[in-house]
């Protein structure tokens, strides 16, 4: 039987230090979801084209399904649970999504939120065209995007 070497990685996830030994081929999305039980990060395509698995690595949006967990060694990650994991205390962007009905099934939502966090930091007052541009890499099959755009406009106003 072939033996696969395990690698030990150390990283921070939502501000908490994590150390795990894993197979080098384990996807970062699987690592977050199944090793750390952070199931808010969703997987829609596993080939980098829907954006559902978007998380932050050192503050920048990345797609966890096309990275290996070992590549996150030494980095700081933030998942949707890192925005707020408490349904009673929503992050302002999460609250704006609720306000404008920017989610239906909610499956794509964590990816949209995590795409938008760094975008809004860099563009605190974006116009609709800029918002539609940054969102064009994330797929939502339920909402038709309009209410997501409105959520971003609302969050930027606040």
């Amino acid at each position: 039987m072939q033996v696969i070497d395990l690698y030990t990685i150390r990283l921070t996830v939502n501000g908490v230090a994590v150390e795990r030994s894993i197979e080098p081929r384990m996807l970062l999305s699987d690592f977050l979801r199944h090793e750390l039980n952070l199931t808010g990060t969703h997987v829609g395509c596993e080939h980098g084209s829907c954006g559902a698995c978007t998380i932050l690595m050192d503050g920048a949006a990345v797609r966890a399904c096309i990275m290996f967990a070992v590549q996150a060694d030494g980095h700081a990650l933030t998942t949707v649970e890192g925005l707020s994991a408490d349904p009673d205390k929503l992050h302002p962007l999460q609250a704006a999504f609720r306000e404008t009905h920017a989610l239906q099934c909610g499956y794509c939502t964590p990816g949209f939120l995590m795409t938008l966090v760094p975008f809004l930091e860099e563009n605190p007052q974006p116009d609709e065209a800029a918002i539609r541009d940054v969102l064009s890499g994330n797929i939502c099959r339920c909402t038709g995007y309009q209410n997501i755009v409105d959520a971003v406009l609302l969050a930027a106003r606040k």
Partner: protein
Amino acid sequence: MATRYFGQPIKRNEDPRLLTGQALFTDDVHLPGMLHVAFYRSPYAHARIKSIDTSAAAAMPGVVAIYTATDLGDYWQPGPLLVPPPPVKDIVFNPRMQVPLARDKVRFVGEPVAVVVAASRYQAEDAAEQIFMDVELLPAIVDLEAALAPDAARVHDDLDANVNAHVIQRKGDYEQAAAQADVVIRRKLHYDRGTAAAMENRGIVVDWDARNQQMTVWDTTQAPIPIRNGLAAMLGLSEKQVRVIAPFIGGGFGPKIMMFYQEEVLLPWIAMRLNRPVKWIEDRQENFYATTQERGQVHWAEMALTRDGKILGVKDVFLHDAGAYAPYGLTVALNSQCTLLGQYDVANYTSEFTSVFTNKPIVTPYRGAGRQHGVFVMERLLDIAAKELGIDKVEIRTRNFIAPEKFPYTNEIIYQDFAPLTYDSGNYLPAMQKAVALIDYARFIAEEQPRLRAEGKHVGLGIVTYVEGTGIGPYEGAKVTVEASGRVSVATGIGTQGQGHFTSFAQIVADQLGVAPENVRLVTGDTSEFYWGAGTFASRGAVVAGNAINAAALAVRKKILKKASDELEVDEADLELVDGTVSVVGSPQTAIKLGDLAVRANPMRGAVKPGTEPGLEATDYFGPERGATASGVHAMIVEVDPETLLVAIKRYVVVHDCGRVINPMILEGQIHGGVAQGIGNAFYEQLAFDENGQLLNASFMDYLLPTSDTVPRIETDHVETPSPLNPLGIKGAGEAGAIPVGPLFAQAIEDALHGVELEILEIPLSPSRLYELVQAAKAS
């Protein structure tokens, strides 16, 4: 009932959990000792299986078991026929249903052949790659017309042709009408396949607890109760031993209600056999083959009209692509047949279809469920007739509308609920007038378009109508309970996939019981909470379950009034329910909290009086006598780039009539999402099969879904014609947005490219296909 919440844009109860990553989806279920499943699927569209070699796979690390069809013994059975054929004279019907694992033959690329169980998903997939199948290749049946050639290979060897069904339905006498017509329009039209592409793929987790003899199934299904009933029967268990949970589901749109997917049959069997929890999660590529699809049809249609544009009759002959198996009966083709006449008063109609087996994935309803095709045919014929007769396109439509006094209006032919197709209610002219006003039709035609054309811009306007049969039976039920805390729990059997049921249903209960919607907790999609029901499909959740919940809440309201009138010694008529209490009108000091009343209704001492029940709880059901017909108008202005043939949507207007509206915010969301899927269907999404039945674009890199830069803002307005068929007066709204977008694109693009003699008779389009059509039109 006071309607404080009904009709209000209440923010959704389910959102906080979804927004914080705390909502449970099927793939989030993780059980100790759980094994993972992967499938070996056929790489061929049509082949006879000579042998399957699993020995190399079995030796792979982590592999626990591998099964092929022969391992299943008597458990190997074709799936059930979900919908029997309609009672139509001279019908031909050859049902052939999917099998758990292919045995003698494979019939589409992606059909499951072997199943691997391993310690991890990675290991299961590694092993599946080491399975080898030796086959004799057979010609793949891909094209619908070629499928019916006398010498065509047969998808099912025991049939003498690739015919799943043949149905003719008639209203009046088309031939006679055509003989009297001033003009008859004849065209051949195509509608090709797409996929629902819910963002969450399918999945199933099964836990068999041998000691308790209890099975728990988490399944991405739209119909948990029928899944429980079917699984229990297949496995020889009592329905009480099987609990099916459809947790949060990442979009359904129809294909998540196929009974039974092969994986749904196999995983419970594997869990029992291995006595271990098992999990299978579909990946995106699998979803493109293994999940059902919809849309492929070819129509030969004709419309007979008078000189002034009055429709005398319509005749339509079409082929419907059933795929390799047809578990859903004739639902999709019947919808096409029965939706075609739309909002128009047509006395004579002949419709004939042949449902054809092909070597392609199975076809079952996907949002719109065949209605698109009918609407496409009718609206295109009207456009062509309008051009030929020199009548304005709005005018030709309004001249043929069913007049409001003609409702209920019957089209005589048999609908998918097996009753004669009858529209319960409708009022079409006001919606058209609103749409015309909103898009500023007259000014666009008279001023805007000529001005922009003079600037060299290619702008066009489309405007089309549709109806949607919604809210069909059989029934749904609900149990409403006032808990000691004062909170109200509601259980119903349907599943939910993002439609906002946690909120809209709470609004109905909140109004009946005088509580706040956030204090109403809905449990849905868990068979341990509610025993009876059918599922979420055909835009029926709000109509059927909504009315069941209303009935149960009303019964609880009566119990509250009765109990409180005993306690307070006043007449029931003098009581009111407000802010979670019941009190004598005008005497707030008499208020009893509903939670306290619930405790008093369930006493620890004394006796519950004969004829009464403990607690404040009631169960009730609702079954509509037939479906409620929603309707609407879509209008759009586009600009076409004559070089690239990219289409930019400048404005998009929807005027919709779905009866009374529970939550306008949620309704608008349904419309937005439907339109976005309609846009994809019309201009971006097409499943490309080659002549061998291989799907060439099975990824989101190659199958284009609409994105935020291609879906415009959607402007909406409403007309409210309440349905007389249910106490709440509601009609379904889930599919409407997606239905008329194909003909809308065709009409608007033709208008934008005026000067080119272009007739668009196919959907989906794409810039490159449009380029070919324009070149061909210019050449002829």
